[in-house]
């Protein structure tokens, strides 16, 4: 997937300004940056949730906005942060919606197998017939990820998936992201606020500032004290833990 000169303006204010980069296939890429840097907007444009004003998001030679919505839904899945589900659905019913782009309302045996696998993958077997509103926030998030897994797309986009999760659930979620990439070969793109999660579980980092890309590269290239201090405007110290750059800020 190639992103070319992506630009978005809101009421004359440019929030994303000529962003270009290519998303490495089969890797985890995290978009980081301060509030209002444009990372979530970029994510929304990549997933055709909002239309760009200029530029293009090239997936197999066609801009995502020009793809047939249902066909694109078989290639790319996006989970936004605003998923306060108001509906009383069971976990299994929710996960089964992930098969909608493939089979519509009529689930085949293959679809059921995908649903089973996704539920097992997120270790939700014992909850699968429970209603979502009976679950904890972490369990609900897992159910949503299971739906995305059942959707069986090449690209998985997660907008701040660790939001509202405690350390235990957030860490487990990041481990799942890693497994999606390593075991299932997915290309995962994340928007993250927590720099250390990005550094420990991603392959590539794309750091945004003021609607532009400040740095893009491997974790080691981007996570340096100079880069981060310049992007966030506070002092950073970087230590190496388990071969990964751990940032300390104060």
């Amino acid at each position, binding site marked *: 997937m190639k992103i070319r000169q992506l630009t978005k303006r809101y009421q004359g204010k440019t929030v994303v300004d000529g962003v270009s980069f290519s998303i490495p296939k089969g890797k985890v890429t995290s978009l980081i940056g301060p509030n209002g840097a444009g990372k979530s907007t970029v994510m929304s444009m990549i997933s055709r949730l909002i239309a760009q004003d200029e530029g293009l998001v090239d997936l197999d030679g066609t801009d995502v906005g020009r793809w047939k919505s249902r066909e*694109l839904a*078989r290639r790319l899945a996006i989970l*936004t942060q605003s998923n306060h589900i108001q*509906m*009383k*659905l069971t976990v299994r019913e929710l996960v089964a919606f992930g098969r909608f*782009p493939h089979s519509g*309302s009529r689930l085949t045996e293959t679809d059921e197998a995908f649903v089973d696998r996704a539920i097992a993958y997120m270790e939700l077997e014992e909850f699968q017939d429970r209603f979502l509103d009976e679950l904890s926030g972490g369990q609900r998030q897992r159910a949503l990820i299971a739906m995305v897994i059942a959707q069986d797309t090449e690209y998985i986009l997660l907008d701040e998936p660790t939001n509202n999760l405690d350390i235990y659930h957030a860490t487990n979620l990041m481990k799942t992201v890693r497994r999606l990439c390593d075991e299932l070969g997915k290309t995962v793109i994340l928007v993250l606020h927590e720099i250390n999660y990005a550094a420990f579980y991603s392959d590539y980092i794309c750091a945004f500032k003021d609607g532009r890309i400040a740095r893009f590269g491997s974790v080691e290239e981007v996570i340096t004290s100079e880069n981060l201090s310049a992007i966030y405007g506070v002092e950073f110290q970087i230590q190496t833990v388990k071969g990964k750059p751990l940032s300390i800020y104060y």
Partner: protein
Amino acid sequence: MRSNRITVALAVALVVLAGLSLFVGVIELDLQALLRGDGHAWEIFLLSRLPRLLAILCTGAGMSVAGLIMQQLCSNKFVSPTTGATISSAQLGILLALLFWPGSTLWGRALLAFAAAIAGTWAFVWFIQRIQFKDAVMVPLVGIMFSNVIGGVTSYLAYQYEMTQALSSWLVGHFSLVIKGRYEIVWLTAPLILLAFVFANHFNIVGLGRDFSKNLGVPYNLVLFMGLSISAMITASVVVVVGSISYIGLIVPNLVALFKGDQIRGTLADTALFGAIFVLVCDMLGRVIIAPYELPIELIVGILGSVLFVGLLFYRLRNGRRAIRLTAPSAGCCPMPRLKEGGQA
């Protein structure tokens, strides 16, 4: 796992009650006379009793399904044809037909009622989507105000042109005028309910939000538009024939959802069946209480419905959206009494 036993129990109850209702009425009609081939008995049966039963079934099932769709699409449990301006818009449509198209047939009036109901419902939903209310109860309140405004316009026009008398039969719903030849429009609800079943999953997905729908490749606006139109058409075809019947579209889907959740595919059949039973029972009550006279169905439904609605409000306030879990799936066909116990998982 969902069991089908509730559905089967509801279906059996409906068949029994429907059979019973055929033999309740001012004129004595018994099975033996029908079996003997008594011409007069058959005439009553075919001209009045059977049409009435069919109208009741279509009304109950239709209004419940219309409410279910609206609640899902707006993801608000208190939206319904009553609290979403659909009924009052349909009434305005009928009045406009009476005023400006005096020679209109029932179908002509239905056409205007369809158009008005659809327009009114869209306007309401467009409005509540623009203004994101923090409190879910605000949405039906706005809807009630909105439909009162439309109702006000209707009343004003009716007074102005001295049409109040003519209009009154569409304001208070009743089945006493349902006879062969002037109720068939209500059959339209059947194909519309089928259509709702085909698109059940679409409605669910749209109810989960715009981004959620887009991710799954479901055209949000189109499905919203279509679902609301189906609801509005069901409602309008009921209002044209029977008049306004409030609360069913609000109460029935809520009661069924308490037990069976919100997956439309799983609840649609139960909602339709339970709605039909509800209206059938109310109608039989209306016919029996002051026999040989008849109370309008709107009165009975209004009383029962408002009591249940208050109960539902209290339940929601106390337990949020929590489900009532049936420990034994065979726990009877009529789930109403459990509401007051406030039982939960």
